[in-house]
Structure formats: C-alpha cells, structure tokens
C-alpha cells in the first residue's frame, strides 16, 4: 500500500503543478493586453509610423509571436452579447500550442531577445543560485549558532531578541542600500565593490576565482542574510523555549546534563519541527532570487529577470520564471513532508 500512496501523492503534486502553471498562463494572457509589449517597442523606435502602417505592423508582429489565435479551446463569443454563448476553437489556440511545447521542455522564446526561455532561466540561475545558496547556508548556520548561544547564555537572550526584531523591521531595500552606502562608499568605507561580479578586463587566475566571487558577493549575501536570519532565529528560539520548559528537559538536567548539552542534544531536535516549514520556504526563494538585491548590486539573476520581463510585458519569460518558482514551491512542500517524517517518524502525511 505505501507504493500506491506514494503514487497518489506524486500524482496529486503533479496535477497541482499543472493546474498552477496553466492558471498562470491563462490568467496572465486573458487579463493583459497581448499587444502591450509591441506598443512599448514601437514607442522606442526613433521613426514614428503612420497609423495605418502601425496597425498593420502590430498585426504582423502578433502573428509572428502566435498571439493572433484564440487563447483557449473555448472562448466567449463576443458576436452574440445578448445571451452567453461559447465558441469552440479546436487545437488552434495559444494554450494548446504552449502546453504541447512545454511538455517537450520548450517554454517558448522571449519577446525581447528571441532566446529560448529555458536558456534565459538557466543563465539567470547561474547568477542567482550562488548568491541565494550562500545566503541560505549562512542564514541557517547563523540561526543555529545564535539560538544556541542565546539559550545557553540566557542573560544575553533579551538583548539578542531585541536586535533580531529590530533587524526584522528593516525592509530589504533599506538594509541593502545601507550596506552599500556604508561599505562600498569612498566617503565611509570602500571595502567592497559597488556592483557586479568584477570587470572582465581584470583577469584573475583560477586560484583567485573563488575568493574573487566571494568578495563580490559579500554585500548582496549579507543583505539577504540580515533579512532572512531574524525570522528563522526568532521562530527557532520560540520553539526551543517551549521545549526547554518541558518535563523531559528537567529530567535531563536533574540527571546532571549541562545546559549546552541539553540544548544541543535534547531541545534543538524537537524545536526544529515547527521551523522546518520555514526552512523549506527558503527553497523557492533560492530560485526566485531577490529583485531588490539583484537590481541594486547589478547582478543579472532571476529576480531581475522577473522584474524586467514584467516591466516589458515579456510574458513567455514571465510565465516560465513564475512557473519554475511555483513548481519549486510545490517541491518544497514535498520536502517539508519528508523532513517532518524523518525528524518525527510518528507523523504520517495524509494522502
């Protein structure tokens, strides 16, 4: 029976993924103007076009991008407005074309530069993943360290919590800008570079590469860590406090265990349970990147790709990127279920 349960679980997740991505496609296309991206590129053009030529051009470009066919298999028939009726469009519709290609791993091409969406996503992830993974690892590590330290030395706990809440109140934009203006500013401290991942004309040898990458990622990573850390640490600390007041902890202390041993070996494992959901929430953020940090530090990652494709109405890229984040979110839920089971085998996921 566990085999069938697993199968049902996987099927349910797959259907949820398909429904999420399909809704995303249909809603974004149905409620937006398909010619919006053409209009902005026509306005950027240095030569104004007469009305008739402009209208013909718009039609030609809509045809090029496959936006001249109906959106779905059935669409409301606008000709008969006096009573609701539907028109059957067959497979010649935007959704069918998109889904057929998506199943084959082709998410279409960008309106802006004609590149395959999959290639753009892979290119952006190359910049985003080192940043977000580094930030996630540092955040988890620091959370662990700070929470243990606060609970082993309770006199510092209130001060620590106060600082964490203070940090949590600052939005990412403020934190990142403050770091930039403090640590990359010739008027204050110019310790770190202001943008990017280094100029390509300053070649570095292979042994300098990891250090160089880290050097350029210090400020973006620190910005992300400072906004992620408080949420995780406050939650874990709260859970740990609850655990530390339970009878089994008193028993352990009575048997002569030191405070640090009690925290490390008994309290933390049980306190981890409510924090697991928060930890797995980090997973979609790993691929979604951070728009603010990537824009501020000029890193061409997923956050910037999302923001730029939204601003330019580049829907194939937007749907591809949001779809990926949505699927990773589903995956994060699966991972959370598995981790709950690993940490506490008494928990059984209802299928």
């Amino acid at each position, binding site marked *: 029976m566990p085999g069938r349960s697993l199968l049902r679980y996987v099927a349910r997740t797959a259907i949820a993924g398909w429904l999420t991505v399909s809704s995303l496609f249909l809603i974004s296309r149905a409620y937006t103007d398909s010619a919006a991206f053409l209009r902005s*590129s026509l306005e950027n053009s240095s*030569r104004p076009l007469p009305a008739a030529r402009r209208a013909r051009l718009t039609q030609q470009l809509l045809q090029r991008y496959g936006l001249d066919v109906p959106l779905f298999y059935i669409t409301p028939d606008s000709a008969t407005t006096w009573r609701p009726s539907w028109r059957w469009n067959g497979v010649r519709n935007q959704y069918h074309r998109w889904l057929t290609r998506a199943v084959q791993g082709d998410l279409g091409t960008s309106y802006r530069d004609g590149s395959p969406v999959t290639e753009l996503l892979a290119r952006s992830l190359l*910049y985003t993943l080192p940043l977000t993974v580094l930030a996630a690892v540092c955040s988890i590590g620091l959370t662990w360290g700070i929470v243990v330290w606060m609970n082993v030395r309770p006199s510092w706990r209130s001060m620590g919590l106060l600082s964490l809440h203070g940090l949590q109140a600052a939005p990412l934009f403020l934190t990142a800008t403050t770091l930039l203006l403090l640590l990359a500013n*010739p008027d204050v401290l110019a310790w770190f570079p202001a943008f990017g991942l*280094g*100029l*390509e004309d300053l070649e570095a040898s292979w042994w300098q590469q990891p250090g160089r990458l880290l050097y350029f990622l210090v400020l973006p990573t620190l910005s992300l860590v400072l906004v992620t850390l408080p949420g995780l640490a406050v939650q874990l600390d709260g859970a740990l406090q609850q655990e530390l007041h339970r009878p089994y902890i008193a028993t352990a202390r009575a048997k002569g265990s030191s405070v640090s041993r009690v925290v490390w070996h008994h309290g933390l494992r049980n306190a981890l349970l409510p924090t697991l959901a928060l930890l797995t929430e980090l997973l979609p953020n790993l691929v979604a990147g951070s728009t603010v940090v990537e*824009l501020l530090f000029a890193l061409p990652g997923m956050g910037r790709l999302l923001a730029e494709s939204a601003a330019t109405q580049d829907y194939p890229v937007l749907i591809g990127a949001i779809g990926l984040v949505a699927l990773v979110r589903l995956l994060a839920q699966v991972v959370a279920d598995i981790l709950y089971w690993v940490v506490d085998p008494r928990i059984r996921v209802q299928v």
Partner: protein
Amino acid sequence: MKQLLSGLILLVWAGLSSCSTPPANTSPSTVRIRWARDPDNLDPLIVSNLSAYETINLLHCSLLQGNDSTLSYVPWLAESLPTTRVVNDSLLHITYRIRPEATWDNGSPILARDVAFTLKVMNCPGLPIELAQAQFGFIRDIILDPQDSRRFTLLCTQQEVGSSGDYSILPEYALDPRGTLRPISLEHLRTQKPPSVVAEFARRYEALELARHPERLPGCGPYRLVKWQSGRALTLERKPNWWADKLPAPPPPLQAFPARLSFQIIPDAATATLALRRGELDLYSLMPAGEFTRLQHSPTDSARLRFYTTDSYQFLTASFNVRHPALHDRLTRQALTHLFNIPALIQASQQGAAYPSVGLISPRLRQYYNDSLPLPDFSPATALKLLQQAGWQRQTNGSWQRRDATGRLTPLAVQVAYRAGEPSFETAALQFRGAAAALGVAVELQPTESSLLNRQQEAGNIDMLISNLSGNPFLYNFTSLLHSSSVGVSNFTGFATPESDRLIEEIALTRNSSRKAVLLRKFQRLLATERPFSVLYFLKYRVAAARALGPIPVTGIKPGYEAARIRPLPLH
C-alpha cells in the same frame, strides 16, 4: 579533511586579498561606460532599445548619420550627401555613391550591391523584418549604376531624404556568399511570392541567431564585439586596421579613438554613482539631477570628474484630451496651462538644468523656433479670467460648472495620469494639483503602470497626461503625434483640425528650409493657441566623466555622448 579545508581557506584568502583594492581604471585605452539596461537584441534589423542602438552604430555603418552639431544628416559610408530628382509627387530618386576607401573586414570593397542586398534582407519574407519594413518600406526599389559599382539610385515614395540612408549596411559576402538574392529584384521580393532560394536564405540568416551572436556578422564599423555577458557587460574592441584609418583627415562620423569600450550594465542610479566615484566607471550619462549636482559640489569628485550638460530634444508635456467635455475648448486648455509654474518645476525636478519653450520645437533650433511667441507663465489670475471666458461659473462651494450644448451641467474636474515611479512627472502633477486646488479646480492624480497607461490612452480614457516626448533635429514629421489619421493610434490628444492637418502634411513634404521655417513657426503658433498639449520644459542631458578621458563629445541626442570619439588622455 583538515588539509582540504585549509587549502580552501587559503584559496579564498588569496582571491580576497587580490581583490581588496577597488579596481580603478588604469588603462587609458579602455573606456568604461554605464548602461541602465542590456541591449537585449543585437540583430541590426531589430533595434529595440538605446543600448542596442549605440552598439549597432559602433559595429556597423549607415550611408548617412544624423549629426547634432550640424543639425542635419552628414555622409557616413556615403561619399557625400545624395543628389535628388523629383519624378512626381509620389516618387523621388535619391542617388548615392559609397566612399571608395570603404571596405569590409576581409578587404573587399563595400559596393552598391551590398546596399541592394541590405534592402532585400529588410524585405525578405520569413525574417523578423516587420519593423524595418514598416520604417523603410518607402524605398520601393534600387537601381545599380552599370558604370560605377559604388553608385546607385533609390526610388522612394517619401520626400524625407535623410531616412533613405539611415540603416546599417550588411555584408553580402558574409551572409550570402553565393549571391543567391542577386537575381531577385527588390520589387519582386515585396510584391510576389518569392522563390525557394529566399526561404533558404531566411533559414540561413535565422540559424546565425544574430540577436544573441552579433559577432557572427562582421560589420564595417570601427569596433568588433569581444564579449557580451547578458545583463552584466558588453565589451567592444577597436579593429586594428579599420578602413577609415586610411583617410588623411577622417570626418567626425569616421573617427574612433578608444581601443576598448566596456559597457557596464548597472540598473540602479545610486549604485552607478558609487561606481563612478570609486573609479569603477569612467562615464555616466543621463545622470539624475540630484546626484549630478551633489557630485559637482563635492571637491573630491570634481577633482577627478568633469561635468557636462547638453540641451536635448526630449521634453516634458502636459497633454489634454480634447474629447473630454471639460477640455474640448481651447480657452479652458489655455487656462489650465497657466497653472504650471515652469521655472519652479525646473528647479524642483531638474535642479535648474532644463529650459522652457513655447512649443515642441527646441529653442536650440533657432531657424525653426518661433521666438515671437510668449513663454507660458504661471498666472492663476489669467487662468481665472480664461475660465470665465470659457463659460465656467464658480459655484458657492468654490468649484466650477458650465452648461454644455444640451443644457447639461458639466463640472470642471480632471484626472491627471502619468507613469508611476517617475519623479519628474509626479512633481509636475502635484504642483498642478496644488495650483488648481487654490482656484477650485478639482484634480485627481492617477499614477499608472506604463502598459495600462498605454491602453487607457488608446481608448481615450485619459483627461490629462504628463509624459516625456522626444524629437530630433533631422525629422519634422508630426503625423503620428497630431494628424487626424493618427487619432486613437498615436495621436492621443484627439486634436486635429483641417488647418493643422494641412500644415503637418506640408511640413513633412517641404525640403526647402526657409519655407519649412515659415510653416513650422505657423504650426507652433497654432499649437500655442489651441493647446492640445503644453510643453513644460526641454530636458538637458547630464554627463559625468573621469578627467582622464579628456573632453567628452556630448550631444543632445541619446545617449548624450559619442563613445567612439572619446579621446582618453595619455597616462603621465
């Protein structure tokens, strides 16, 4: 395990220590320039943004180039300005000759057949040429001179000569070495079903993926692409033996000095300013007014940087939707114009670095600017008088109303829309609302997302719009902006009269500059009276650059500088 960890730490430390000093530019031959966005697409047939336009003009040459200092087109690949012969009202023959020194990278000369090939590519079915076709579709055919392989005549339906030579010339030897398109005429490609060789050519062209791989298309410009890291940086390198180097005294369009141009893509303005101050950038153009003034007043920065401002052809406007019941008469529009305090607005949003104008012709264009018209002044008293003349009556609660033709009461209430997130639009809108409120005119501000704003404009749902418009000193065609044929498509004010239509058509057709001056002055007078929109001010472009770059050739046309003509000073 311990050894591995120590090794890793050592590597990181070595890397960090090698990076710990800011990488100031030590090579005078490399010029690092800030771009706000990536070029996205470097196919010369599709130029979709400013960064792409700048790159394409460094990789390729056109026949003519718009020149800001002479305010006209000047020869680039062409030996001289073309000669023209009017055949009839709708046909103009424009004859060019290509410079004899001009060659491709392989040493073969650039000939008239390359121009013919370029025009055929722009009309080749199956390629993404719709925009190029719409813009250059007025070139109906090309006739090559049988005696002179560099001479050719373009058959054009449009009277604007400059546009007939303003597109990159593509190398036939690289894209179609067997000359498969040669036997097919341009007329044939445009009008008839093309033969199979055309489809084959289109496939070959598409396979090159020039949008992402511009290095696969050798241009005749002074630079070649070295590296393009999408969203990060783009580097161009000067060709060691560019054909124009053979000219004894190359004219400005054929000058190219920096050995390397490195464009750094930094979307955020504050980050870009920091990078400039740290020496990680050499040139920052279109700088926000606040940052620019701050740097100018900083002794450290002014010792290292030079600052330039240049009058541009971009202007801030307040457009009125003349179809709106409250705005359909010119007196009301004139009254509302008097509620903009333009000098205060220039000070508030541009730190004083902008200049007012009577209309859409820049005061810089002395020949065409109508200086006998008064500049719009801030005068609530005049506005009050004009509103009363327009039939508006003040109510006891301070608001205004009037009866329309059907006897229905119309309140004087307008919604002012502008693109959200643009501080200069917001400042103008807030200032207007303040002045209008003091007079009892109800104004509601609507900051709107740009695509939604476009849609609302097309539907004619916007009462008043604050936006930037751009012009250039080479083309005087207002058809898309104000002609009756463009109402609802690109004429969003909805304004058009038989007289304005006639003037617009005549201005577009006239090539005689003194006649054009008369017509343009008349047109400015008409717009000043009718006020379908009010020009609030013309922007100045601000450029900050390292002193080591020497004097920067700045222009009033975006991006505000000519990268190829920057002449870095030698290091002492």
